[in-house]
């Protein structure tokens, strides 16, 4: 089935208005005088299947840079100049295995490309010395890539067999970290813009909507609304102008999928947007992206300029008579702008406060015109669906949720990073097979999914197959895909408090239940985690009273809030209450934190036998709660101690005990 589809596509290709590959080959022939260049040669060159001199790839996405990739890159360039080595250096995005950053790949002529881990600047010389001499340092190698036109390395595993990569189904991320995100030609050589060219020449806008509907693609931003239907609604509304908005605001703390996709493969998003804009009849599109992502913004800027100069954007795309301008709008930091009407207000230059729906944006959105807001990952899925067909897409997934989902894996887990799995994969597979489980032999406690709107999933539900519906059933939600893993040292009451604090700060303040309710919920949790020494008699009463009304408050907030942010605001509390009730009870009744994470509920004691009287702890104590003469055992005043743990951190003799 998949075979025949591909054939059909190849036949159609000849009838296209313009093949992006031919466009570049012709350009090279005509403009750069490469008269002997053929399509095949160009493809092999641009796909780096055949290279003439070594290529070094450095992962300089935001995570890479954070781990020191900038310094690594400099060290590599210095090495090459000093030793007069002829090689190409290519900056690539993130392949997803953040914990191993900085990542350096090396491809030698005729051989498979190799990936190396944790190449900090001081390791550059050794690595390059070794590889150029034909000796691959095995402790640094992650694996080799596959290349049909090159020889493989002996005794080096393939990257796609690595436990982190093997269980993944990489579609959206397939080129992230592999290709040069700043080179349009590389994208095209890997099949880029083929889908757009074909779409414009073969399908009517409503046919594109139907294809997307048929594929079962649902919004990856959290809501899970069918993408094709969303565009069709906007298309069907008569209007002189319609707008497509790509939501790249990625405000969920703990999520960075969109950033990685844009940094690593920006043209994929632009192509997806161009197809979606065509499908809904929009000639102007916006990318609303966080200002905190300067690198992603500059990648997009560059990519849009490249696409425009190649005629893939702007006026008369591919000679089809359709226009599309893409404008970047930088968000200014407001979580609530993930809500579509708030986002629209923000683009219009207003306070990002949601408004009641209906009317939905598909009727009256940006500047009062029909508008569709789609998420980065949703749009990044679109080119493949048009290129390979709706059936190819929907082969993978569950009954209600098709395709793959990208997750950002972080927290107490061995392999932090970006993973893409088929819908229906279990959480256990993600956490333990791909993520490598919990480090330091600690026990798994929960995984938080869906950000501030989501919930915490306990061990007992690790085997559910992930899709939109199954997550909702256990009080969580897909959200945008942040997966934060927590171990036994994470306190679930503290996590609930963390999210309530986040939400009440990020609430827009417009509707009363969200503005006032989340603030009171936070206070209730604060009372639970506050130590008795800072509590007077009335507080204890309030503590119990608060807990009694917590559920009632939560249900009213869910029931009456204006927007999705408010409606889902109580989720982190409700889900932790549901699955980790015992931890709440320990805090409330026994006044202790089983995870040992709530500082005010801990007691600190100095072991007289261990203490040497070095006075370091007394100097560090911010509350002046430690007394003692030099060279004599010190002691802590329990009434003054604020439980910050500074004394534990500084003590060189392990004399401070925590209980």
């Amino acid at each position, binding site marked *: 089935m998949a075979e025949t589809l591909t054939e059909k596509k190849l036949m159609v290709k000849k009838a296209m208005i313009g093949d992006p590959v031919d466009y570049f080959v012709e350009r090279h022939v005509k403009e750069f005088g490469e008269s002997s260049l053929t399509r095949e040669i160009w493809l092999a060159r641009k796909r780096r299947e055949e290279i003439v001199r070594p290529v070094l790839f450095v992962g300089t996405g935001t995570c890479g840079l954070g781990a020191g990739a900038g310094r690594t890159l400099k060290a590599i360039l210095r090495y090459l100049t000093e030793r007069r080595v002829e090689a190409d250096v290519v900056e690539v995005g993130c392949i997803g295995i953040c914990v191993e950053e900085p990542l350096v790949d090396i491809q030698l002529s005729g051989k498979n490309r190799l990936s190396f881990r944790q190449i900090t600047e001081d390791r550059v010389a050794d690595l390059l010395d070794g590889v150029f001499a034909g000796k691959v340092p095995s402790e640094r190698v992650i694996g080799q890539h596959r290349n049909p036109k090159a020889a493989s390395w002996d005794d080096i595993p393939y990257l796609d067999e690595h436990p982190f990569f093997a269980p993944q189904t990489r579609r959206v991320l397939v080129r992230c970290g592999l290709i040069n995100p700043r080179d349009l030609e590389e994208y095209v050589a890997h099949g880029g813009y083929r889908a757009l060219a074909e779409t414009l020449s073969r399908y009517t806008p409503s046919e594109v909507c139907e294809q997307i509907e048929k594929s079962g693609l649902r919004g990856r931003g959290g809501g899970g609304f069918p993408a094709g239907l969303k565009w069709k609604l906007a298309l069907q509304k008569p209007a002189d102008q319609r707008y497509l908005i790509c939501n790249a605001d990625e405000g969920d703390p703990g999520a960075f999928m969109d950033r990685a996709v844009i940094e690593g493969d920006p043209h994929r998003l632009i192509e997806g947007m161009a197809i979606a804009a065509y499908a809904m009849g929009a000639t102007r599109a916006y990318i609303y992206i966080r200002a905190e992502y300067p690198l992603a913004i500059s990648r997009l800027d560059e990519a849009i300029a490249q696409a425009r100069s190649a005629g893939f954007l702007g006026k008369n795309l591919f000679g089809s008579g359709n226009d599309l301008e893409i404008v970047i709008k930088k968000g200014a930091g407001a979580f609530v702008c993930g809500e579509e009407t708030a986002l629209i207000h923000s683009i219009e230059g207003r306070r990002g406060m949601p408004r009641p729906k209906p009317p939905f944006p598909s009727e009256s959105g940006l500047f009062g015109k029909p508008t569709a807001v789609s998420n980065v990952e949703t749009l990044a899925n679109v080119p493949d669906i048009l290129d390979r067909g709706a059936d190819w897409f929907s082969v993978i997934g569950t009954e209600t949720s098709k395709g793959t989902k990208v997750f950002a894996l972080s927290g107490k887990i061995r392999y932090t990073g970006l993973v893409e799995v088929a819908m229906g994969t279990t959480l256990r597979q993600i956490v333990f097979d791909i993520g490598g489980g919990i480090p330091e032999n600690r026990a798994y406690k929960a995984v938080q999914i869906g950000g501030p709107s989501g919930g915490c999933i306990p061990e007992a539900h690790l085997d559910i197959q992930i899709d939109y519906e199954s997550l909702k059933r256990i009080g969580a939600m897909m959200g945008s895909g942040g997966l934060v893993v927590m171990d036994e040292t994470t306190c679930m009451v503290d996590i609930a408090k963390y999210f309530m604090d986040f939400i009440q700060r990020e*609430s827009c303040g*417009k509707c009363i239940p969200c503005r006032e309710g989340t603030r009171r919920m936070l206070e209730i949790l604060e009372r639970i985690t506050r130590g008795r020494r800072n509590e007077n008699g009335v507080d204890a009463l309030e503590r119990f009273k608060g807990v009694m*009304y917590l559920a009632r408050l939560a249900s009213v907030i869910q*029931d009456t*809030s204006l927007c999705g942010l408010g409606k889902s605001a109580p989720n982190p509390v409700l889900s932790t209450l549901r699955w980790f009730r015992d931890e709440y009870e320990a805090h409330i009744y026994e006044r202790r934190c089983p995870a040992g994470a709530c500082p005010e509920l801990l007691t600190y004691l100095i072991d007289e036998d261990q203490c040497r009287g070095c006075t370091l702890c007394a100097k560090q104590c911010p509350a002046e709660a430690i007394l003692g003469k030099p060279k004599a055992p010190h002691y802590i005043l329990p009434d003054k101690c604020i439980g910050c743990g500074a004394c534990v951190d500084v003590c060189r003799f392990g004399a401070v005990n925590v209980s």
Partner: protein
Amino acid sequence: MVKLSVNNRNIEAKSGDTILSVLKRNGIKVPTLCHLEGLFPSGACRMCVVEVEGLPGLVPSCAYPVQDGMRIQTHSPRAVRARKTIVELLLADHPDDCLYCVRNGDCDLQNLAEELGVRQRRYAGKKSMHQIDSSSPSLIRDPAKCILCGKCVRVCEEIQGVSAIDFIGRGSRARVGPAFDEGLNVSSCINCGQCVTVCPTGALREQSALKDVIDALNDPGKFVVVQHAPSVSVTLGEEFGIKPGTDMIGAMTTALRRLGFDRVFDTSFSADLTIMEEGSELVKRIREGGPLPLLTSCSPGWIKFVEQFYPELIGHVSSCKSPQQMLGAIAKSYFAEREGIDPARMYSVSIMPCTAKKFEAERPELSSGGLADVDAVLTTREAARLIRMRGLDLNSLPPEPADTPFGERSSAGKLFGVSGGVMEAAARSAHYLLTGEEMADPVIKSLRGLDGIKEATITIGGLELGLAVASGLANARKLLDQIRAGRKDLHFMEVMTCPGGCIAGGGQPVSSDPNAIRARMKSLYAIDTGAANRVSHRNKQIQKIYEEFLGEPLGERSHKLLHTRYVTRDVMI
């Protein structure tokens, strides 16, 4: 037409209507805190939520359109519990000082707490800290009492076109206020007080002059005169539970006298005087070629508005002081001289439907010889408070007539209280001034009613005059922008700051009756219809003051006492 069921009763409704409007029409009351009739629903307060079968959450009835086959429960336990919780949450961050609040007994939040049976402090917690802003001569803002319904913000922006205030900050730190968290006094606030009339709580109120007035009344050395604006007699009754629109002129005069005011005057008298001056100014400008259109100057909110936003049109504004200031000025000159009272001993109080009048009375140019024309301005609401404070029952007081010489008025002067009234009054006298004859029909129908912009063309002695009336400054903006863009057919334009005119002023009783404004308007029209004298120039006392004191309209003395000048104001735009 769609069919739906509400509380298990079948109802028919127009498709496209909101649930709330359908409920209202069918006599079902669902509470609201942020709803403003005629403006796009904001959906902020969530008080109006109802349960709709098949929809996951509760639905805000103010914003949700009715659909065929909808099954709605307006007071299900779930909906009522949600409303109650919302009120409890509001109270958790409220000062809880009802007994000390100016809106005690007249507060939407208080009423809702009562209706929903809030009897305990369920959600205790930290209250937000705020400072009271008493910088404005007209208004006081107490953000601690603000529930962020946003009505004031929307009225200021959408009805008045001013935008002196907006939401600031976010989340639980969100608040309403002028730019840079500054005081209202340095903002573009025009002091109209429309925000006060929509505020559901005591977060916005007038800057009260009650204490000053009481002190003056208690001071035996002071000769205290009071004037009341044309619209006050038809609105004051509402503060005493009397039907909206009832004319309480007689009982009000009695009450004021019993409060200890030495003279009770009627601002409608000086409205007649305004017509003499402004009518003459109009005639003069028509004869001498402009600048036209002449813009009226009675409404002090509008005056500050034009000074701030349309300084290039200041030359168009009539130089006449407002009736309040005219009366103040002649009381301390003509009247004081006649009665042999030292003007410095005289204390002049006015009762106004307006908060901007407080600002106007403080303008330094509206004084002579260092004495302010008007010393203290009370709103209708404050006057009612004063009357209640002295134990007077407006319902049972026998009517008394006003004092001479400023007690006599034509009904034209009385019409100043309603949008279009100045125009009608001016047209009547201009007709006489230009032709020597009275208008055959003194009523100009197209200038009556509650529309925000009203226009008419009348012919006086062969001269075709273009007249325009705007109320609500967002409406005025529309006309002013046309004039700015070169519109030339208008000769005279009346602007009232508040939508509908002074009957809906920012100092008027905060009515829960949606038809109150209409009733007030009708009442003023009825007074005009039944009046013996319907034109300003036939007011005997007016004729007398010109004979004895002023000389002629626009004469030297008039110029000194009754006219003023305006300044360009550079506000934080």
